[in-house]
């Protein structure tokens, strides 16, 4: 069973969990590192990286962020990455527990298109284990590593990953900090837009 967004009216807090998902080495941890570095120290907690081996995340990276009070509610964010390697499917599934929004970080390298597709399919399956789907979850696409000479055209990546769902997509060079913030803002917007009264 899924455990969804926490609204704590006693403390007037809204807590959102955002997960950066995607194939191995696509730049998920880099996105988190850039956000953590750019945010003022008083708004973010310690960044925890678990059992990294070389550049690989083996469990998850995580940091909490306190955005402050917005419209009378204190907004707190929990930002996570998942390990990208196919082998760690169980770990990815557990990090998705309670997820409110997903940034899918795709690798623009033409040779990685199959990995992108497999990771997206993996996301779909893992969301399904919590009774969620790609259509009911707030998802934003990020086409990372746009500076690569071997980068696939954006139109091609759109056709491959985004043809039916029309998610918002952003081009990025996360390692240089380009495109990280717009992606982050958009996923928050998508999450909050789903917080509407249902009649």
């Amino acid at each position: 069973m899924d455990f969804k967004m926490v609204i704590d009216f006693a403390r007037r807090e809204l807590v959102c969990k955002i997960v950066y998902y995607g194939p191995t080495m696509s730049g998920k941890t880099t996105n988190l590192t850039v956000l953590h570095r750019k945010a003022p120290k008083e708004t973010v907690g310690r960044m925890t990286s678990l059992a990294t081996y070389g550049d690989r995340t083996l469990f998850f990276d995580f940091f909490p962020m306190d955005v402050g009070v917005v419209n009378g509610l204190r907004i707190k964010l929990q930002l996570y990455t998942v390990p990208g390697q196919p082998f760690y499917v169980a770990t990815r599934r557990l990090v998705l527990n309670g997820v409110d929004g997903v940034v899918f970080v795709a690798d623009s390298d033409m040779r990685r298109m199959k990995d992108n597709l497999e990771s997206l399919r993996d996301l779909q399956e893992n969301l399904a284990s919590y009774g969620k789907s790609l259509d009911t979850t707030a998802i934003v696409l990020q086409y990372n590593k746009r500076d690569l000479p071997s980068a696939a055209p954006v139109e091609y990546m759109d056709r491959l990953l985004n043809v039916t769902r029309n998610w918002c997509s952003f081009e990025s060079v996360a390692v240089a900090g380009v495109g990280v913030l717009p992606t982050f803002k958009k996923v928050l917007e998508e999450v909050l837009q789903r917080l509407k009264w249902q009649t």
Partner: protein
Amino acid sequence: METRAYPGKFVLNDELVEAINRTLLTLLEKTDARCVLLAGADGYPIAVQGLTCNMDIRSFSALAAGAFSSTKELAKLAGEQGFCSQFHQGDKHHLYMSSVGDKAILVVVFDNRTTIGMVRMFTLRTASQLEEVLEKTPGPSEEALGEPQLENLSESLRAKIDKIFDEK
């Protein structure tokens, strides 16, 4: 009349937070533990009692939830639905964790002033009490929402995030 709710959202109100804190405090006293923490299954710290000196509660909760979920997967591989509790033994400090239904995790940090037997007995009992308390979490109602306006929250948050990152 229109019924309004945020389906599936977990809501805490004053009454529930008070009930949770009271239950945690009783557990703390009975076990003589250093601190007790209730974390959501998603890693969000819900309530904590006891001495947490310099402990990063948010990271602690996220890691506890991660460890618990990880063990759950191990249980499945071993042919179990899940393990309801786990114990980590250190030299001076130890951890005992118990699931609270499928919604939360109860974590007790204790030292050699008490025993694992005491901690296990009272923690399991408390976990089932807390499960009942959390079962009572209401679906958010318009009434419960009160002052904070979710309308335009997205726009306001965007402005706030812009401010946070531009201030640097």
